[in-house]
């Protein structure tokens, strides 16, 4: 059984069909990229999976559990962590505190209204480990709002990692980065994903990034899936070339 099973998922906004009967399987340990031109419905798909937007039709199953109708926080508590297309951090907190608060969400006593040295200690350990894996230890003491854009993007990934998710959703992790920053970020992500211990769903615009990181690719066009398969197969697909890749491949 696949870890994430999406069946006939549909979302209409008024007369516009943003996501049109999308079906998809993500196996455990797989890195799957969702690509497509602007307005293809990639971000809406992410918002549907994480419960930010409610589906008009269809279902999302995660490890056998039906996610449809759940609120974003309980979906996250089931083990799905995400990053946002537009960087979402706690800007006045340090990078370390950001990662700690992310890890704290997985603690049984996360709401404890007194004391907290145990909760904070446990969470900080996991948060610090995540920061280290993304090479952010040297900026851990700085307020997140003052980090470079590249570090901010990586900090979001670190926060998601600190939650030790079973499924990680990355929404354009290199969005807005310079060429050098992108190269660096992709190196870091590639190292991170090399051991295939994590299941990842990735939305990305940059084809080089996609072909470097993804094992499988789903192509969306006007809300619908037009291709699904391994990178080489997708790259060769005529319809994909027409819709999206243009002269690139």
């Amino acid at each position, binding site marked *: 059984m696949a870890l994430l099973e999406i069946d006939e998922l549909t979302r209409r906004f008024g007369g516009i069909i943003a996501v049109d009967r999308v079906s998809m399987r993500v196996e455990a340990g797989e890195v799957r990229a969702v690509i497509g031109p602007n307005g293809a419905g990639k971000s809406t798909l992410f918002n549907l999976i*994480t419960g*930010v937007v409610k589906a008009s039709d269809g279902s999302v199953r995660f490890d056998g559990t039906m996610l449809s109708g759940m*609120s*974003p*926080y*309980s979906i*996250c*508590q089931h083990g799905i*962590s*995400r990053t*946002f297309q537009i960087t*979402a*951090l*706690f*800007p*006045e*907190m340090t990078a370390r*505190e950001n990662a*700690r*608060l*992310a890890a*704290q*969400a*997985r*603690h049984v*006593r*996360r*709401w*404890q*209204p*007194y*004391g*907290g040295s145990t*909760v*904070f200690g446990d969470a900080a350990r996991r948060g610090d480990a995540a920061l280290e894996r993304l090479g952010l230890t040297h900026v851990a003491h700085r*307020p997140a*709002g*003052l980090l470079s*854009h590249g570090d901010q993007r990586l900090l979001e990934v670190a*926060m998601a990692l600190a*939650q030790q998710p079973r499924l990680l959703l990355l929404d354009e992790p290199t969005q807005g980065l310079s060429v050098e920053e992108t190269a660096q970020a992709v190196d870091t992500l590639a190292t991170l994903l090399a051991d295939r211990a994590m299941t990842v769903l990735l939305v990305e615009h940059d084809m080089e990034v996609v072909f470097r990181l993804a094992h499988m690719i789903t192509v969306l066009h006007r809300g619908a899936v037009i291709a699904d398969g391994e990178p080489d197969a997708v790259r060769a697909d005529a319809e994909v070339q027409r819709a999206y890749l243009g002269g690139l491949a």
Partner: protein
Amino acid sequence: MNFSRGLAAAACVLALAPAALPPYAMTLLTEALILGLFAMSLDLMVGYTRLLSFGHAAAYGLGAYTCGNLLLHTGMPLLFAVPLAALFSGIVAIGVAWVCTLASGVSFSMLTLAFAQLFYAVAFKWTTVTGASDGLAGIPRSPGPFGIAIFAGKAGFYYLVLACLLGSLLFCRMLVHSPFGEVLRGIRENEAKTLSLGYNTRRYKIAVVAIAFALGGLAGALYAPFAGFANTELLFWLFSGQVLIMVIVGGAGTLVGPIIGAAFFMLVSNLLSSWTDSWALFFGLIFIGFVLFAPQGIWGLLSGTGRAEGRERVRWRFLKSTS
């Protein structure tokens, strides 16, 4: 100077006040401490969670009317009536917050204002319970069956208020430094992100409103036997605005700041009103001055750390606006 040493020093000075101050000054000081407790309770919402309430007078009024009725009609001793009224205010707040947190931002603020005005209107009409426009008068400081009468006197009541204020301050401090408080901080800075990290943010917000109302209710519950009366003015929107000013002038998000803000408000409004009828105009100018030039408030200016933090914050805003 660290917090506990500073607090101990302040407690000592305040504990000696009845020996040194004339009765009139003691009355003012007692009221300032009650208002300080009230402002501090609002700081949990405004300063720590960025839940801007325009209706915090509802908490004060609820506490005052409940305590007033308990003391007038049940013969319950002061020491039971006050915490019971605070508890009642906190329980009512769960319902109020449940509705208000359906919205966020300005809509949340408008809903808090609407609730406070609703309570105000009810207080005006429900004559048997609230005494309508006459209010409740002659509220006693009942000693109760055990004869604990020490709180009935001027100095004794002052010590009761002081104990409530210090206890609440320590409680709030524990709360904001706990894991729960850290989640509130997350909501303050980025609620959508906090939600997506797996926190049920609405439940946290309802909890903090309930706590703020309970402590605000405690302040109101102390005010009723202090003044001996409770009237609809305690529920009026003007009072909600004044307490918000106390929080901002004193320094939001510092707990101690709003207490000082309340004392400052009392002191300055007393001085100004003895000098001119349009004292509110001048206080408004002071308020504008603080918002523009010292957004970290009196406590931020005094402690210095707030100043550096304030600069950092301003710097971050600048970066955000230019990127």
